[in-house]
């Protein structure tokens, strides 16, 4: 029994170690050095190499966004800040730089007011990242089991009362954490928002070239993809406008 536990623990550790690899870290270090010496092109290629080899993190996207910003490639900077913000919605620096980059684009938009419950939900969820939420959920789960054990085994009535209520509380916390975590993960993996990369895009009323021009948007603007049909995507802007653009005019976050 004891041996089995040790083997399982070692297995978990092995998974965690496997997730962090040493080699790309030197690439990041080289990228950081190039950035500090204002060689942004090199920094960009180093960071992109790391992402190309299949790794990511909020800090990496943030640094890449910064390098693009310094190269005056605002759409790419916004795209990477958005990616970084998705991975770590808690980071204040990411939000600051994203706001700054958004102030440099052509289109200025008044976002539609969000339903207050939705914004509450989002701001609660964004207290932690998805991974942090799931870890919190696991901790809550373990503590809830411990409390239940105590409740079952304990002879003292007071102890049983305390452990019962804390178990209920912990189960609630655990469920909320897992819900937030899943929600954050789904938001990330859905890829339903994008940044416009073409300098000027005419938004059409339907997915073909002959349809009516509705309005014009420019590079760096964030859009939400609501539908995709053969090379065309239906996009919704932050201000609520909806229209069709070609899929090669934007890049998904």
């Amino acid at each position: 029994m004891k041996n089995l536990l040790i083997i399982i623990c070692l297995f978990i550790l092995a998974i965690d170690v496997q997730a962090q690899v040493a080699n790309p870290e030197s690439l990041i270090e080289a990228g950081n050095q190039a950035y500090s010496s204002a060689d942004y092109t090199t920094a960009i290629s180093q960071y992109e190499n790391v992402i190309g080899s299949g790794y990511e993190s909020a800090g990496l996207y943030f640094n890449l966004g910064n390098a693009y910003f310094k190269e005056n490639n605002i759409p790419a900077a916004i795209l990477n800040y958005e990616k970084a913000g998705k991975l770590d919605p808690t980071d204040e620096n990411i939000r600051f730089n994203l706001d700054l980059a958004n102030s440099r684009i052509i289109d200025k938009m008044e976002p539609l007011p969000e339903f207050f419950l939705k914004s509450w939900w989002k701001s609660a969820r964004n207290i932690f990242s998805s991974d942090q939420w799931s870890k919190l959920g696991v901790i809550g789960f373990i503590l809830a089991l411990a409390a239940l054990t105590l409740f079952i085994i304990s002879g003292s009535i007071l102890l049983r009362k305390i452990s019962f209520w804390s178990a209920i509380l912990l189960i609630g916390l655990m469920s909320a954490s897992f819900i937030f975590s899943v929600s954050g993960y789904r938001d990330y993996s859905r890829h339903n928002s994008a940044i416009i990369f073409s300098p000027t895009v005419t938004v059409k009323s339907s997915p073909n070239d002959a349809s009516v021009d509705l309005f014009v948007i420019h590079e760096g603007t964030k859009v939400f993809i609501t539908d995709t049909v053969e090379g065309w995507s239906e996009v919704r802007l932050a201000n609520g406008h909806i229209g069709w653009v070609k899929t090669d005019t934007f890049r998904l976050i």
Partner: protein
Amino acid sequence: MMRILRILLVLAVMSGAMADILLGQAIEFTASTKSSVQVGEQFRAVYAVNQQVDRFEGPDFEGFSILSGPNQSTNQSYQFINGKVSQSFQVSYTYYLQANKEGSFNIKPAKVIAGGKAYESNPLTINVSQSSPSQSTPQQGGQQGSQRSAQPRQESANKNDIFIKAAVDKPQPYQGEQVIITYKIYTTVPISQININKISSFPGFWNKSLLNDNDPLKQSNEVVNGKEYVVADLRKIALYAQRSGEIKIEPMELECVAQIKVQNTQSRDPFFDSFFNDPFFNRNFQNVEMNVESNPLTIDVKPLPSTGKPLDFSGAVGSFNIASEIDRTELKSNEPINLKVTISGKGNLELIDDLPLSFPPDFETYDPKITNNLTKNATGISGSRTFEYLIIPRNQGEFEIKPVEFSFFDPARQSYTTLSTPRYNIKVNKGEDEPSGITYSGVSQKNIQYIGSDIRHIKTGHIPLYRINSFFIASSSIIIWLMIPLLIFIAVIILWIKNKKRSGNLALVRNRKANKVARKNLQKAGEYLQSNSTEAFFEEISRALWGYISNKFNIPLSDLSIESVNHRLSDKRISEESILKFTGVLENCEYARFAPGDKSEKMQWIYNEALEVISKIEQELK
């Protein structure tokens, strides 16, 4: 009074005379003009009637152009001579005509309607001859001075007498380099009324005239092709190219009146001829209006070399010097500093917009006052441009005004030069009196001012990396992380339940066995009683009683005492009597065990009591 009388008299006479005219006099309607004119000559044709006319119909002047007319004029005169009144009345219609072509022209009569009847004038015949300057009279010339007359033949004859030459001092300048274009008029005849119709435009150039409009024309003499000309600078313009490439400059056009000397060989009037026939008057002049055009120019502007171009180069071309002057370097806060930067030299000074001066951010600065001190002369524009900065340090401290760099291209040396002003260290002492109205409290506070906005710096240090799309929530490890605690939990609960079951059974068994064991012990004690072995008997009784309690209530033997037995039995609601009996038997047994004397009688009693009390407790527990 006299005047009124006179007017009345005149009116009376007039009415009489009018009546006389209308009634008595025969109508006379005559046309008169010159019989021969030259092409281009202007002349009059007069139609005169000696009566009041109702309508006048002029003829068609075929072959002539009507410059003006018919101009009506009425001429009345009265004469009182020796009591006789003679009067004349004349209405005349005058045309100003100009002959257009050669030939003999007949002009049809004009018509008038007077007193209900139509009258016709005599027809006119005009011979138009080819114009020749010798036939023009001085008077005519005088009259025509201000008139527009196109006389192409004359002009072509005078092409060499008057011309404008446009000259450029550098046909291949650098962009921004000064080029001077000079327009000179060459003439052999006196000219007047120079009127510039078209000034050349200089596309792609910034230009500045070097001559003032009201300056007198500077004249000089020059011999061109063996002819002596009077030369005057009409325009002198300094140009600075704003772009490179071949730039064409359109010619300049002007209109002037030339006084052309003519020899009056043919005299029409013997009297005048004799009178004016001396050398002075023989020099007759004709004023001829002329259009003169300069030659077009092409300037090939070279771009500035890109090699060695300083980063802060802003387009200054020429040769310059920079000087700066500061009025003080140590002062109190809120006192002004004057910093003057002067760029002097030759070149496109006026195109130097601003200097890239950077002051410490805490200084209050104002836009510079720019003053030009430029002199224009034949070689171009030179002088100085002064930027005067007013700076007010608001806080005390040591500051530094960095040197300002000014770069220009020197076309003479074909290279860029960068000049810089000295560095100024400014010491600002605490001002004696802080200006009132700014500080209300003892401490003057200021919000931190953002001087620029930039993104936050990159994250340095260790950046943990994860496989793309490796979310803990979606990974297999979370299942393990959840499964292991759950398994441990289940295992613990199972173990606990098993353990509880086992210990629960043991107690039950012992409980059930308690009576049996006690009875077995008592039976043994009965045997010892029979064999009268005292020691063994008491031992067995004691074991039976203690063991019963221990087994019945699952209490280890070691924990038992009289008191705990007492306590436990009363807990189980055993009657007071039975408890007393039980403890009494126990005490007696212990006592008898260790007390000396005969115990055979007591043994029987204890045996009976023990049997009784155990069955009694057994009953009460059910």
